[in-house]
């Protein structure tokens, strides 16, 4: 502990010895550290954004799609849903059944006649599967209010009034109660499965249905088992259980890019370390008399080794601090401008690992760069102090 405080004290005194060199060294380290920090931060932020986009447009990680076809004439989707809900593994995180219909809102709503709008009829908790942030209002619930309510995506919200008449096979009225960001350019509406009969009084005979199941592991077997058991008893046949989300592929691709960038960052660090070796050796050369004076008055070899290493580490902390500050500004100020506001994605924050990465990069550069000068300092000839 005492050795530490002493080393810190002499390190602070030492920055006075050659302030310009200290600054140059810190800048050299900063360049290298910044390269590594930029790669990590850009990687993390990009990954966050790209994954969020994919979660919004496709599905969150480890979501499986279960496709079923009707075995007989009277296969009941609701019966299958109930059977599956009872059997689904308890560790699932999301379960939804979807059906799409197309409606034509009345021209009175200010549309071209014949602009089709897709209505997604949703059973279960779809928002546990897809990242569908609400921009305003509420997600439609299973209430029996009339007219039935829907959430509109941005494209649909721009097209439609809060309440409008539409034509399907019959005519109906629909109220829009919320706006949801689903990342799709075509107009979409989302309504609850249980109110669909209010909107579409004559349900079609279903020949196939699709269920999405999100679990917290990458093994589809429990999902397949539950689906097959539920299907057998309700007149359906499981056609396929497939990985639905695209997160794993995105991660792999990003990892490749990030590794390439990280290698570039590592080279920048190495160049910085070589620069520090250079500066360090010439500094030791110039300070040889001072170092032998220190030895004469009682410094051990270890003391001088620690002095030089401590100096470099102090500079490393400065460089790492500056790199984190710059990264923080970049993430807090620059990145939010690049995120479109209507995507309703959370603005990314600086990952805490940045601090660790910066310290690690700067620290290892400092140690690599100052080891040789430190060893040379420790080996200085004491008696040289008498011969000048």
């Amino acid at each position: 502990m005492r050795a530490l405080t002493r080393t810190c004290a002499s390190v602070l005194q030492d920055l006075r010895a050659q302030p310009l060199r200290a600054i140059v060294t810190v800048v050299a380290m900063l360049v290298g550290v910044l390269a590594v920090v930029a790669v990590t931060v850009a990687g993390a932020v990009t990954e966050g954004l790209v994954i969020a986009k994919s979660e919004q447009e496709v599905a969150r990680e480890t979501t499986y799609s279960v496709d079923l076809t009707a075995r007989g004439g009277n296969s009941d989707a609701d019966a299958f849903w109930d059977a599956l809900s009872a059997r689904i593994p308890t560790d699932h995180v999301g379960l939804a059944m979807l059906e799409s219909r197309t409606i034509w809102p009345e021209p009175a709503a200010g549309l071209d006649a014949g602009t089709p709008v897709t209505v997604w009829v949703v059973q279960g908790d779809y928002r546990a599967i897809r990242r569908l942030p609400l921009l305003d209002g509420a997600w439609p619930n299973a209430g029996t209010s009339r007219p039935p309510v829907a959430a509109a995506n941005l494209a649909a919200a721009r097209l439609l009034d809060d309440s409008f008449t539409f034509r399907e096979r019959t005519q109906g009225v629909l109220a829009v109660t919320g706006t949801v960001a689903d990342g799709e350019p075509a107009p979409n509406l989302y309504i609850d499965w249980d109110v669909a009969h209010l909107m579409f009084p004559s349900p079609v005979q279903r020949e196939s249905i699709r269920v999405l199941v999100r679990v917290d592991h990458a093994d589809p077997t429990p999902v397949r088992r539950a689906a097959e058991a539920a299907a057998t008893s309700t007149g359906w046949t499981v056609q396929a259980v497939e990985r639905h989300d695209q997160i794993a592929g995105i991660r792999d691709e990003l990892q490749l890019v990030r590794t390439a960038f990280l290698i570039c960052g590592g080279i920048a660090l190495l160049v910085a370390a070589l620069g520090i070796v250079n500066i360090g050796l010439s500094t030791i050369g110039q300070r040889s008399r001072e170092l032998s004076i220190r030895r004469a008055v009682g410094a051990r070899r270890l003391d001088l080794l620690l002095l030089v290493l401590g100096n470099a580490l102090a500079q490393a902390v400065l460089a790492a601090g500056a790199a984190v500050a710059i990264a923080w500004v970049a993430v807090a100020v620059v990145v939010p401008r690049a995120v479109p506001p209507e995507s309703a994605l959370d603005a990314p924050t600086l990952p805490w690992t940045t601090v660790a990465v910066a310290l690690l990069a700067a620290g290892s550069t400092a140690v690599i760069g100052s080891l040789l000068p430190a060893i040379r300092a420790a080996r200085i000839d004491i008696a040289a102090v008498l011969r000048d």
Partner: protein
Amino acid sequence: MTATTATLQTLHVDDVHHVVPTVQGDLTLLHGASFTIAAGETAAIMGRSGSGKTTLLSIVGLMLRATRGEVVIAGQPTSRLSDAERARLRNQTLGFVFQGYSLVPHLTAAENVALPLSYGPAVSSAERRAAAQLLEMVGLGHAARRYPRHLSGGEQQRVAIARALVRSPGLLLADEPTGALDVATGEAVLDLLLDVARARGTSVLVVTHDEAVAARTGRRLLIVEGRLSEDQAACAP
């Protein structure tokens, strides 16, 4: 010179040889130097340039290892000590005054005086205060915060004397301490060195060319081509 019990011996040098390899073969710089310095004694080492004075002082000051022989400091044989143990002895029992430019340029006068306190055992606040008083004692209390480049050569040597005494060593070693100074300043610095050493009972071993310097010490050792002898002629009572 009969009181040679170990406790009274600050320094005992026993048959020290020093041989260095050169391109022409081994060169013997010291041929079996032996002498003893008692507590509180002051002595001068004299000799012509190249005779081996600095080499001997480096060995006595534990900055250089003799190729043969023993240096006993404060009763402790030093030839087998590790680097850290020798550093500790330099820090605790030896004080050094060199010819010139021996201050650390980026430290103030006060920080230079306190430099030995940053090595070796923990320092009490009393010792810190004593360090400040030493600067007063050498007449530079007003210059505590000045850097060496703003001090004259004589002032720098006074700071170096204060630094040499900060750990209250038993033996002060000086190599041409007045060599870089004019005569009057040199005399003043030497007076100071010997006065404070006497006042504190510190032994002094000073290397010098200068008869006038040697005349002020209690004893002279003469070194001729690496051979040391007591200079009887000059050792008038």
